[in-house]
C-alpha cells in the first residue's frame, strides 16, 4: 500500500515536471498536438475510404510511408555510434550523453512502428503477424524478422533508459553490472535492425535495384551519418535549454565519426554507380531513372542530385577540423546530411525498386496530401515523445527531479 502511494506520488512529481514550462514549451507542444490531430484525421479518412487516398498503386505498391520507415530505422540504429565510445571505450564526454542517443532510438522505433501500421491495408488484423497468437512466418519472411528485431531493440533501449533514469532519480549511481549485458547486446542488435531492414528489400530478386549485396553496408554507413547528425543538433538544444553541460569535445568527436561514415557511404555509392553504369545492363534502368530520368519521367532527378550535393558538401565540412569545430558550419553540415540521407534512404531507395515495374511500366509516384499529412502527424508524434522524454530526463540529470523512496528525505 505504501509502495503504491509512493508510486502515485512519484508519478505526480513526473507529471508536474512534464506539464510545467514556459510559453515556448507550451507553444511547441500545442503545434505538435495540432499536427498530430490533423494526421489522425487524415488517417481516419484513409481507414474509411482505403489506401486509394494515397498515390500508391499496384505498380508502385510501397511509397512515402515505407520510405520514412526505412530512414527512421537508420536513425534508431545510429545510437550505436554513441554507445560504442561511451561504454566500450569509456570516452567520458560521450558517456554523459549516451542516454539521449538511446532516447532518440526509442522515439525512432516508435515512429517506425507507426509508419508500418499506417501502411497496412487492414491494420485491425495486424495481430496475425505476431508469434503464438498470430501466424508469424518466421524465419522465411524478413518482415517477421523485422518485427522481432525492432521490438527487441525497443525493449532493450527502454529498459536501459528507464533503469538509468530511475537510479538517478532516487539519487543513486546506476550499476554497470546491470547495464553492461544490455549494452553488449544492444550493439550488434542496433546493427541488426538496419541489416534486417536492408535484407527486407535486398532479398527480393524481382527488383534488381534492391537485389544488390551493397545494400546492407550502404544502409549502415548512411545511418551512421543521419542519426548522429540529428543528435548533434539535439545536444545543442539541450545545452541551451538546460543547465546540462555537454562538452564540445563530445560534439566534435561525433562530427568526426560522421565524416568517416559518410566517406564510406560515398565510396559504396561510387562502387554502385560504377558497376551499374559501366556494365550498362538492363538493370541500369532504376539508376538511370533516379539520376537522369527514364523515358521522360524524372520526378526524382532533382532530389537525387540535391542529396548527392548535400552529402558531398557535408562530408567535406565534417572532415575538415576547422569547419566541424565551427558551430555554424557544423550545424549546416548536420542539416545537409540529414536531408541528404532522408532523400537517399527514403524515396530514393524505395521508389526506384518499382520503376520500371516488373512488367516494364513506369508509374511516377509522389505522395498524396493524405500521405503527407499522416507522415507529418507521425513525425510530430515522434517529436512529442522525445520532448516529453527530455522534459523528464533533463531535471533528473540536473538533480532537480528526485523521487521519494521509503526512508529518503529528498526534496523535490
Amino acid at each position, binding site marked *: 500500500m505504501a509502495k503504491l502511494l509512493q508510486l502515485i506520488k512519484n508519478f505526480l512529481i513526473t507529471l508536474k515536471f512534464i506539464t510545467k514550462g514556459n510559453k515556448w514549451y507550451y507553444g511547441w507542444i500545442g503545434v505538435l498536438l495540432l499536427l498530430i490531430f490533423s494526421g489522425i484525421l487524415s488517417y481516419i479518412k484513409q481507414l474509411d*475510404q*482505403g*489506401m*486509394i487516398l*494515397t498515390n*500508391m*498503386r*499496384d*505498380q508502385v*505498391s*510501397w511509397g512515402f510511408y515505407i520510405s520514412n520507415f526505412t530512414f527512421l530505422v537508420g536513425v534508431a540504429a545510429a545510437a550505436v555510434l554513441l554507445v560504442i565510445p561511451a561504454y566500450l571505450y569509456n570516452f567520458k564526454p560521450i558517456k554523459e550523453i549516451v542516454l539521449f542517443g538511446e532516447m532518440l532510438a526509442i522515439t525512432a522505433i516508435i515512429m517506425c512502428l507507426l509508419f*508500418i501500421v499506417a*501502411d*497496412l*491495408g*487492414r*491494420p*485491425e*488484423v*495486424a*495481430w*496475425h*503477424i505476431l508469434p*503464438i*497468437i*498470430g*501466424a*508469424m*512466418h518466421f524465419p*522465411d*519472411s*524478413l*518482415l*517477421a524478422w523485422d*518485427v522481432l528485431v525492432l521490438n527487441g531493440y525497443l525493449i532493450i533501449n527502454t529498459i536501459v533508459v528507464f533503469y538509468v533514469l530511475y537510479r538517478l532519480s532516487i539519487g543513486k549511481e546506476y550499476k554497470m553490472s546491470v547495464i553492461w549485458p544490455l549494452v553488449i547486446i544492444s550493439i550488434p542488435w542496433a546493427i541488426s535492425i538496419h541489416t534486417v531492414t536492408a535484407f*527486407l*528489400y535486398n*532479398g*527480393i*530478386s*524481382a*527488383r534488381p535495384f534492391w537485389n544488390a549485396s551493397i545494400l546492407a553496408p550502404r544502409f549502415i554507413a548512411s545511418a551512421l551519418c543521419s542519426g548522429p547528425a540529428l543528435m548533434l543538433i539535439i545536444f545543442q538544444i539541450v545545452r541551451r535549454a538546460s543547465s546540462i553541460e555537454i562538452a564540445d569535445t563530445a560534439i566534435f568527436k561525433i562530427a568526426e565519426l560522421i565524416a568517416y561514415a559518410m566517406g564510406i557511404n560515398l565510396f559504396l555509392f561510387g562502387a554502385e554507380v560504377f558497376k551499374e553504369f559501366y556494365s550498362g545492363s*538492363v538493370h541500369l*534502368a532504376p539508376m538511370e531513372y533516379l539520376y537522369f530520368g527514364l523515358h521522360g519521367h524524372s520526378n526524382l532527378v532533382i532530389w537525387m542530385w540535391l542529396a548527392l550535393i548535400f552529402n558531398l558538401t557535408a562530408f567535406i565540412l565534417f572532415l575538415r577540423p576547422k569547419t566541424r569545430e565551427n558551430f555554424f558550419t557544423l550545424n549546416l553540415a548536420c542539416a545537409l546530411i540529414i536531408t541528404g540521407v532522408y532523400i537517399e534512404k527514403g524515396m530514393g531507395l524505395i521508389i526506384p*525498386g*518499382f520503376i*520500371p*515495374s*516488373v*512488367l*516494364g*511500366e513506369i508509374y511516377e509516384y509522389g505522395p498524396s496530401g493524405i500521405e503527407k499529412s499522416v507522415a507529418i502527424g507521425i513525425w510530430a508524434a515522434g517529436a512529442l515523445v522525445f520532448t516529453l522524454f527530455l522534459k523528464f530526463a533533463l531535471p533528473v540529470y540536473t538533480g532537480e527531479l528526485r523521487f521519494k523512496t521509503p526512508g529518503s528525505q529528498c526534496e523535490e
Partner: protein
Amino acid sequence: MPNDIKNKILQKPFSRRALLKGGALGLASLALPVGNADASIWEAFFQKHFKEMNDDEIQAVIKRMEKEYGEEYGLNFNIKNTKPLPGTLFGYGLDVSRCIGCRRCVYACVKENNQSMQPQIQWITVLRFKKGEKWVSSLEESEVYYAPPEVPEEGHFYMPVQCQQCENPPCVKVCPTQATWKERDGIIVIDYNWCIGCRYCMAACPYGARHFNWGKPNRAKQEYNAETHYLGNRPRYKGVVEKCTFCIQRTRENPGRYPACVEICPVGARKFGNLLDPDSEIRYCIENKRVFRLKEDLNTSPKFYYFFAT
C-alpha cells in the same frame, strides 16, 4: 503412431492458442466499442488461420460469410471449399504465336472472378510488343495500354501475363503472416481474411500478378458470380491482396471445367491441364513445342509455359 496419441499431440497447441486468443479477445473488447459489435463481426475478427481450422470450423466460417455476402450483395452465394484433387498438378500453356491481343481473357476473368470494377482490378495483363524490339528478358518496351480500333495490329505481337503459379513462389516466402501458400495441386492461394495488406508479396512478385484492393471493391450487384471458392473468387475486402487462382472454383470440380480465360480465348491460344497426366494437352505442348517460361533467371519455376505452335 496410434491415432489417439497423434490427436493429442496435434490438439495441444490449439488449446493453448485458444486460451491466448481468449485473452486477446478480452483485451480487444476493452479497446473497441462494444455497442455495435454484433457476433459475426467478432467471429470474423478472431477467425483462425485457414490451415488451422478443421472442416467443421471452416463450414461455420463459410456459413457466416454466405450470410454476410448475401446481406451485402443480395445474392445467394455458394462458397465451396473443394480440396485439391489427388494426382493433379495444374499447368498452363500460352501460345504466343496465336494470341491476337483481344483481351477477351481479361474480361472473362473479371466476369468470373468478381474483381472490383471501380477501382478496376484485372488479373491478366496483356503486353504488346513491336516486332524486333527486346522482350522476354526485358519487358521495358512493352505497352500495356494499347487501344487500337482492331487487333491484331500489323507489326506487333502480344504476350498475356498473369499469375505464373510458381513452384518456388517468392510471394509465399515473404508473406509475414502465412496468408498465402501453395496448395498440393500447385495453385497459389490467399486467405483474404488473414491478409493484413502489407503488400510485401507485391514487391516480391516478378510478374506483377498480385493486385491490391486500394479502395472498397465496387461492382454492380447483378454482376457478381455467386458460384465461388473460399480461396478463389469470393468477394474480397478493402485492403487485401488478390490474384489469379487458375479459376480454382472451376478447375477443382470433378469433372473439372477450364479456367474462364481458356474457355473464352477465340483463337485457342490458351491450354490448361494436369502436368502429372502424360496424356494431357499441356504435357503434349511441353514435350513437342518450343516452350519458355518468363524470367527463368529468377528460378521461380513457373507452371505457366509460353510456346510457339506455328
